[in-house]
């Protein structure tokens, strides 16, 4: 319950307090931290083969290079490091463990085979190139389409047909409903493998405190607490003597929400050599070894009625897990996510899925922004358009007929998941209006067949899983992911407020948004609140930052802590104001007597009493200090929803796509800072535009990556981005404290399907069937020509 009468901070465009030092270039990112003089630097030798047996490793030339201190292989590391094992308690999952350096066998190009420790990063790389490795190349399972066949080479001996995870589901009367429907519409969708590519590659710095024999570990991460626990288990080193500190992070997007082998090696070697160790990744390594995502095949079948309503939907999903199950989310997150989230905002009562994560000799996959949702919504929203084309009903109308209606909310979907509130119909209605949908359709119908430019419009209606609590992670088998987050509030003796949260931002503006929440729920001026996070020595334990959970989980924890601390402050203030506690109201860092507001005491005066620093003693029974820590476990998940509508123009001769109009109507429940929410949506949309039009990690049939550089892994630049028109609907969550729903991933989830559908719509006239990403001009022209050849063939 918000402090009444308090000038609200939540909902305001509060400029970010992070900006001033970042704009002066004073933000300290990982490699900016001044490392001690005796710091040693790491460089890894990487496998050039996708699959090979390691016959011999000769490190003498490398070790002999002046400036090199040591060279380690897997055997050396095994003495003091255990393999990383991703535990996922879900039926159908086969765990695989991974040594921090490849042992006996390399399983993807770029896998680390040895590590050099040297006095200078340049020398470390010189030495890494002197390491000679004799490989016996072995056949590699690379193409997802073939990796689970009988004859496919095995990535792990103990995982038959490379099926690392498999699960199926069918709602009670699915089969009957599927067979009774009038018509089946089916399609296969193939999404391209992409990577998060944060502008700051990964890196870490391990420092030893000899006296306390403890480890101070800086790492560019989104999961400081989870990383600390993992380090302790893998190094067998007491968790209380590990302190993980998150520096400024130059973008994460999920890429840094994994725990990587290099972090283990850096910490282990610091402990072993008793010297500070620093490792900074370069871009080539980052593209080769940071997690990839979205390498998926969807086969959808929808049983529909004459009106275009989906009576029953069947999803067959295959995801590429890569060589190992990444830590902590593993290879099941995309496979379960894609299969479970695809029903989205649609009232689909009969649903069945069969989903699998297949191991291949490629870089491990992991949780990149949106986690499977951009792909699964590309599939379902592509199917909605095809239903429309088959029945001659406009795709917007098909969606209107399938959407869950507001009067059905709260709604429990076919997988038993509860959508508490939402604005599915209203978002679609407003998006169609703002994109001037029906006039566009009119103009499109009048367009001539020989126009040089083909225009199309694409829609994506979606829900986004966000703010998942412990229930949400357990249901996915991810028992190592706690689900709760926490906040510690201290009103200091001087009356200022210290807020510590279990998060680790990478540009989301946490220091500003959590101060806004605390200001409203504690009745303190926002400028009196000082937020800090990311340091496990100060911030309380929590699940940290990924999957659009910050606002919901940590926001909720701040509210819970504020509500409990308010009582104590009000009691002490009532004592000072000599009034009944019900008459006390906290506002603007003051406690006022509601009945005569000019009578008040400020937080400083209350704090002085609480810290026993005045002549007046604390009232009987009151404890000292003004400090509280609260853990908050959000509901199973919150469900922001949105509609993206996009108009594209495709040059018929060059098949180059340009985005002419981009409209978003978004509902993230109650918005804390709309300016920051819009920034998250902009960034997500542009990553989605990249994923749809140009981004792809390319492996050849031998498992060689062909674009581990930014000239060949194309991402959108300023000239590729349209004007983006965002409008908000605020339907607060009734399950999550504060009514927040989260927004981190909505942008990318909506953009991939909407842009793909727009291009497919533009080319539908040419008969091209656009169902795979990315939509490079070469692919689009080939599809246009394929049908034209067929047409020419018929005409001859």
């Amino acid at each position: 319950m918000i402090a009444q009468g308090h000038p609200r901070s939540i909902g305001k465009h509060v400029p970010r307090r992070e900006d001033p030092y970042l704009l002066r270039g004073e933000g300290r990112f990982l490699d900016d931290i001044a490392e001690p003089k005796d710091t040693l630097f790491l460089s890894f030798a990487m496998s050039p083969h996708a699959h090979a047996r390691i016959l011999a490793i000769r490190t003498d030339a490398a070790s002999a290079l002046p400036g090199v201190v040591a060279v380690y292989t897997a055997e050396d590391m095994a003495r003091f490091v255990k393999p990383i094992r991703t535990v996922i308690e879900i039926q159908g999952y086969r765990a695989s463990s991974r040594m921090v350096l490849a042992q006996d066998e390399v399983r993807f190009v770029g896998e680390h085979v040895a590590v050099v420790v040297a006095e200078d990063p340049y020398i470390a790389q010189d030495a890494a190139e002197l390491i000679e490795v004799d490989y016996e190349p072995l056949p590699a399972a690379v193409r997802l389409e073939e990796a689970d066949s009988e004859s496919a080479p095995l990535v792990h001996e103990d995982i038959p047909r490379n099926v690392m995870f498999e699960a199926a589901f069918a709602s009670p009367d699915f089969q009957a409903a599927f067979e009774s429907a009038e018509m089946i519409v089916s399609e296969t969708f193939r999404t391209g493998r992409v990577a998060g590519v944060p502008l700051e590659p990964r890196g870490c710095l391990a420092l030893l405190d000899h006296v306390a024999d403890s480890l101070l570990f800086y790492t560019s991460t989104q999961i400081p607490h989870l990383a600390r626990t993992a380090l302790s288990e893998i190094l067998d080193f007491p968790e209380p003597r590990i302190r993980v500190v998150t520096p400024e992070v130059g973008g994460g997007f999920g890429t840094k929400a994994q725990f990587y082998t290099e972090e283990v090696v850096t910490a282990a070697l610091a402990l072993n050599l008793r010297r500070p160790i620093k490792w900074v990744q370069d871009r080539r390594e980052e593209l080769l070894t940071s997690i990839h995502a979205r390498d998926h095949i969807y086969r959808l079948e929808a049983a529909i009625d004459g009106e275009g309503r989906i009576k029953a939907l069947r999803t067959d999903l295959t995801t590429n897990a890569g060589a190992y199950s990444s830590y902590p989310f593993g290879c099941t997150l995309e496979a379960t996510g894609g299969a479970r989230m695809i029903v989205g905002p649609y009232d689909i009562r009969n649903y069945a899925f069969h989903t699998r994560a297949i191991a291949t000799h490629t870089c491990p996959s992991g949780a990149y922004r949106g986690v499977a949702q951009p792909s699964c919504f590309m599939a379902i929203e592509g199917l909605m358009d095809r239903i429309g084309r088959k029945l001659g009903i406009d795709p917007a109308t098909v969606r209107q007929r399938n959407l869950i209606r507001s009067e059905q909310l709260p709604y429990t979907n076919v997988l038993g998941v509860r959508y508490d509130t939402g604005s599915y119909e209203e978002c679609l209605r407003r998006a169609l209006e703002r994109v001037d949908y029906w006039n566009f359709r009119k103009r499109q119908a009048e367009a001539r067949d020989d126009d040089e430019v083909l225009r199309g419009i694409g829609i994506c209606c979606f829900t986004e899983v966000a703010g998942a609590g412990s229930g949400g992670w357990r249901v996915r088998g991810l028992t190592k992911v706690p689900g709760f987050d926490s906040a510690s509030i201290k009103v200091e003796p001087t009356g200022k407020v210290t807020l510590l949260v279990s998060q680790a931002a990478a540009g989301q503006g946490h220091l500003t948004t959590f101060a806004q929440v605390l200001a409203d729920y504690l009745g303190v001026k926002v400028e009196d609140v000082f937020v800090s996070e990311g340091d496990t020595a100060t911030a309380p334990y929590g699940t940290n930052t990924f999957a659009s959970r910050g606002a919901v989980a940590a926001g909720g924890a701040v509210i819970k802590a504020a509500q409990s601390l308010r009582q104590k402050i009000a009691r002490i203030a009532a004592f000072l104001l000599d009034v009944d506690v019900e008459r006390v109201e906290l506002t603007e860092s003051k406690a006022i007597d509601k009945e005569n507001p000019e009578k008040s005491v400020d937080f400083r005066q209350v704090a002085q009493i609480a810290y026993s620093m005045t002549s007046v003693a604390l009232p009987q029974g009151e404890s000292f200090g003004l400090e509280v820590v609260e853990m908050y476990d959000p509901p199973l998940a919150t469900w922001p929803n949105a509609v993206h509508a996009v108009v594209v123009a495709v040059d018929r001769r060059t098949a180059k796509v340009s985005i002419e109009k981009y409209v978003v109507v978004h509902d993230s429940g109650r918005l804390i800072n709309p300016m920051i929410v819009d920034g998250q949506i902009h960034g997500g949309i542009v990553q989605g535009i990249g994923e749809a039009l140009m981004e792809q990690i390319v492996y050849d049939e031998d498992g060689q990556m062909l674009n581990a550089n930014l000239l060949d892994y194309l991402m959108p630049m300023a000239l590729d981005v349209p004007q983006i028109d965002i409008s908000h609907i605020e339907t607060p969550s009734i399950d999550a404290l504060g009514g927040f729903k989260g927004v981190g991933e909505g942008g990318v989830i909506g953009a991939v399907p909407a842009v793909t559908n727009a291009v497919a719509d533009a080319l539908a006239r040419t008969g091209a069937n656009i169902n795979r990403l990315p939509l490079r001009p070469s692919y689009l022209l080939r599809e246009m020509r394929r049908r034209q050849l067929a047409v020419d063939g018929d005409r001859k």
Partner: protein
Amino acid sequence: MNFAGEHLIRSPKHAVWDAINDPDVLRDAIPGCQELHKKSDTEFDAVVQVKVGPLKAKFKGSVRLEDIQQPHRCAIVGEGQGGVAGFAKGNAQVELIESQGATLIRYNVHAAIGGKLAQIGSRVVQGVATRLTLQFFENLVARIEPGDAGEPGPV
């Protein structure tokens, strides 16, 4: 990377076949070949220095003749470790067809590169692989045809 082509050699089929199996001929034909030692009738150890403008990579590996159907058809398979740059392998299916006393040599090449060369230079290296293949067969032709064929024309 796959590419194909053919060349007419003004000498009889058996002479072309012998040449393809002769290490001295292969050493002259393979562009940048510095060493070629016979390990067996069908396998040779090789050191090849590939130079593309500023890029230089030395490949140590082997050249093997496989699926030999004398004197009609065989596969010339080359594999080399380029140390840090990565590795390269090529498989040239070669077919000899008699035509009026001369021989048409038809080839279908599949080449693949691995390691850093593939990750960074794939765009440039592809053109290089095509050109080196053409050069190989042109050198082969020049080496086999009797002297009166004169200087090989400007490339």
